[in-house]
């Protein structure tokens, strides 16, 4: 297995979707190729840092405001079957 073959299998390797025979080849390649070993380590760190450090905040205030706006719009149209909303406003606030 060379580096190009290895890269082609990288996604399956990360996702644990690689057949055992190929996995042995991948591990053998990693044992002899420092560049590919670095690529594996730093790609794994890339995934981890994004997964654990969400770059966008979703504060409770935003959650509450969005949910209230959504439910107001939904109740205003009352599209669900058998739903009659007494006093619902016709204009959905956005």
């Amino acid at each position, binding site marked *: 297995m060379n580096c190009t073959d290895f890269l082609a299998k990288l996604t399956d390797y990360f996702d644990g979707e690689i057949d055992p025979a190929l996995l042995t080849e991948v591990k053998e390649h990693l044992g002899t190729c420092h560049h590919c070993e670095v690529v594996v*380590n*730093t790609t794994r760190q890339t995934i981890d840092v994004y997964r654990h450090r*969400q770059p*966008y905040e*979703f504060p409770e205030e935003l959650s509450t405001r969005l*949910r209230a706006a959504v439910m107001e719009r*939904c109740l205003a149209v009352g*599209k*669900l079957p058998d739903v009659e909303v007494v006093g619902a406003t016709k204009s*959905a606030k956005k």
Partner: protein
Amino acid sequence: MAATTPTPEVDLTVLPPDLLEAVQAEPPHPDVELVARAKAGDTAAFEQLVRQYERQIFRTAQHITQNREDAEDITQDVFFKAFQKLEQFQGNSKFSTWLVRIAVNESLMRLRKRKTSKTVSMDQDVQTEEGSIPRDFAEWRPNPEQNYSQDELAEILRKTIAGLPPGFRTVFTLRDIENLSTEETAEALGLSVPAVKSRLLRARLQLRERLSRYFRKTKEGSK
């Protein structure tokens, strides 16, 4: 757009006993009951679904549009559309995947309207070979989080993912940040599984390459 991928009917009588037992023992996803209650007119059940998925939908929209106001509008629109089209949801996919698919479509539509990027579809932006071949082979510091404050790190992550073409950052967001399976990501984006895998590989490699500029270990071991 609703996820309408049909699930093939399975004749349970032809399944081997062990598989039949596994199929029958699998409990229904909790959303199934909430969706059924919402369809029957229980708005509290629908609000519970909003509560469960608003964060995921907001983040997905913000990652794709790179704009907070757009993400807020899209989050509202996604749940409002889902509410209106609830009867069309047949349960062939997870409810969350159905929502994500609506969110992706709304987000791409928003990008097209903004016209700040020529690359606003899942197909037009994937021809680049950038990042397909790794060039930076430096190890990173033991932990990037130890060398930057939370705010600095968040800014680096935002800037870096913003530089990816929308088609790549959408796949990375769904698969690696929101933790959808490859199959769910494919379903949400209307792509084949091999197409998702190919884009995911390139997205991961491009991000790795770009983050290496910040995180690579220097000889002095300093920033």
